[in-house]
């Protein structure tokens, strides 16, 4: 870790809730109210950041995640110098470029080309610098055919593409990115991501605010989770995502999606789900290709002769659903009253990397009735070690070197041929 490129020391920022005095009439009214001894009830303050400290080393990529209103954008605006902290110190070493809203500097009446010059100037480039990079910028945006069209006729995605293309060519020491990649099509988003990674590899310091946890995890070296204006976690991006997911799930615990309200009314209690890796360590992140044990702890008030345990997984972003049931594998437990534990061993959990939730259920197989259920779903992160293969992390191998084919009749036709 070298010298910090960006440093936040005990920064606090407070905003006033409600309306500011926008017109003199309000001020005059307020003065008379004060003179008459009637002070209106004030609308109070909103503490956007409370005593936040973090630092980003040169060349490091820091992700900032957290729920809406946690202070993410405020942090970026403080870094960019748009806002001034009420207390504490913000230090920035080097040329800084902030992509807080890339279309902010666009003017609808100007053409794409004119806007490139204008935006370049706004982001701190000289005219000659823009001229030098114009071709690269245009090529990156993919808007060659619309350069002389006024931007007011552009779609939202096109405007954002133009803005990001300029920003991607500033070559700053420090780049601040605030959730700007959510517009634009998939191909452009990937190009942006690749470009950001390229800049980080080239030594640019990155501060990246996003709700796209996967993207953050793939780009950033370190992450900070903000919650209600405080740093609630700082560290490894994967752990940060897990922390954030857990916090979110606690926060939305009352919602039916995460909760199993009937768990309280069942005769048994499911005490917990635990994931253990091959060495027996409790983990929250499971690697797709590693064996994992899932332990189900529970408590029964009456003995159950034929107990069937079930563990399910669901991808958080979609409908992928996996279910393991001991009964289907021919395993029924005879369990006395009291606390017990069963475990299911998975030689691998070959699901695509990402965020999942897991929950357990216990059935009484003689009556086919539900005995216990997880009171809340358990967040789980699956790590495919950067080798995604789609929905499933399937093992695949590519044996041998390329074999030379002789110039002879092909073994099969590659294209359909019509006689």
């Amino acid at each position: 870790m070298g010298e910090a490129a960006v440093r936040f020391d005990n920064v606090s920022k407070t905003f006033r809730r409600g309306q500011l005095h926008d017109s003199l009439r309000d001020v005059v009214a307020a003065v008379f109210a004060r003179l008459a001894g009637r002070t209106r009830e004030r609308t109070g303050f909103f503490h956007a950041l409370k005593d936040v400290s973090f630092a980003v080393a040169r060349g490091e990529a820091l992700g900032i995640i957290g729920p809406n209103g946690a202070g993410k954008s405020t942090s970026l605006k403080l870094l960019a110098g748009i806002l001034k902290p009420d207390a504490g110190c913000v230090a920035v070493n080097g040329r800084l470029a902030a992509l807080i809203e890339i279309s902010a500097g666009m003017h609808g009446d100007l053409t794409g080309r004119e806007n490139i010059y204008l935006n370049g100037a706004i982001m701190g480039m000289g005219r000659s610098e823009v001229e030098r990079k114009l071709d690269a910028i245009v090529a990156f945006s993919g808007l060659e055919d619309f350069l002389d069209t006024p931007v007011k006729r552009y779609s939202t995605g096109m405007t954002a593409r133009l803005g990001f293309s300029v920003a991607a060519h500033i070559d700053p020491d420090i780049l601040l990115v605030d959730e700007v990649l959510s517009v634009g099509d998939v191909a452009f988003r990937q190009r942006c991501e690749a470009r950001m990674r390229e800049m980080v590899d080239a030594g640019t310091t990155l501060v990246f605010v996003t709700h796209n946890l996967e993207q953050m995890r793939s780009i950033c070296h370190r992450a900070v989770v903000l919650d209600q204006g405080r740093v609630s976690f700082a560290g490894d991006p994967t752990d940060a995502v897990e922390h954030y997911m857990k916090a979110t799930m606690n926060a939305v615990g009352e919602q039916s999606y995460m909760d199993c309200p009937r768990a309280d009314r069942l005769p048994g209690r499911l005490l917990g789900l635990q994931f253990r890796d091959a060495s027996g360590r409790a983990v929250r992140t499971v690697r797709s290709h590693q064996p994992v044990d899932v332990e189900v702890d529970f408590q029964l008030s009456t003995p159950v002769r034929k107990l069937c345990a079930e563990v399910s997984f669901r991808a958080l972003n979609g409908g992928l659903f996996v279910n393991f049931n001991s009964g289907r594998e021919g395993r029924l437990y005879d369990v006395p009253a009291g606390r017990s534990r069963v475990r299911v061993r998975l030689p691998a959990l070959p699901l695509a990397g990402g965020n999942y939730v897991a929950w357990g259920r216990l059935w009484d197989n003689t009556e086919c009735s539900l005995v216990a259920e997880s009171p809340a779903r358990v967040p789980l992160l699956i790590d495919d070690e950067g080798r995604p293969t789609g929905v499933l992390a399937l093992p695949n191998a590519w044996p041998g070197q390329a074999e030379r084919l002789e110039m002879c009749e092909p073994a099969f036709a590659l294209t359909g041929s019509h006689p």
Partner: protein
Amino acid sequence: MRLGDFRQKIGPQTSENRSTETLPRHPRRREEDHARMTAIGQPAVLTELVRYRHLWWSLTWRDLRVRYKQSVLGIAWAVLIPLSTTLVFTFVFTHGVKVNLQTGMPYVLFAYLGLVPWTFFSASLNGCVNSLVANRSLVTKVYFPREVFPLSAIGSCLIDFCVAGTVLVGLVAYFHVSDPDWSYVPHATVLWLPTVILVQLTLTAGLGMVLAMANLFFRDIRQIFAVVINLWMFLTCVVYPLPADRSTTGWIVAANPMTPIIEGYRRCIIEGESPFTIRFAFAAVLSVVILGLGWRVFRRQAHKFAECV
């Protein structure tokens, strides 16, 4: 800037401010740029502005571009507006009320020489009043010295002013040939013209910053400005010379820095006299003071702009 201070005094933020103001101010560590909170007079402000000159030019150019986009006559409007106003006043003051110009210069020239600098002055201030509010998205999303907004509003009007000024050559030539009672003699005093323009720019920049900031906090300023600027024009020797008897409006006229400035244009271009009178010197000093104070207050309040706009 009394309004800003005023608001701060009565605003509910006061107690909050006090508690944080007592905290020690950490020095800002910035190697090469963003010396944001430095007071005016320190070279950091100027170097920062110099560093952002491209931006100033880009915004100036954008204002110009947008003003004349989708208009058939384009930049010709920079000439047509003062010219048509001149014709209106020529009609009024030659066919209606008669004015005595004393100097014998054709009324059209007199009015044009008043209206072009005056249009520059009033259009600049009008642009300044709206500059921060109209660029709200930039103020809240991008950092750069906020002075750039009013200064580029002035910049685009300066270009209009220069375009309108070139037409003066044609007008002078026309009256030199067609008016038997008047002929133009070129004077070396024309060389003082940049000084007169510089004083006007100083005054405009100082007032512009104050107005831009005031309108950001209180939108009433724009309405008040529209009234005041109209009144101001008639208290200045724009379309008629001020009466020699100044007993009634004496102190207003004496304190009005625009009168010696506009007289300065006529003196150095047409009358062959140096623009420097005692009143011009007073106007110059006043302009520098207004710019100094205005800029200082602007800098002090600049960090609030993004929150209050």
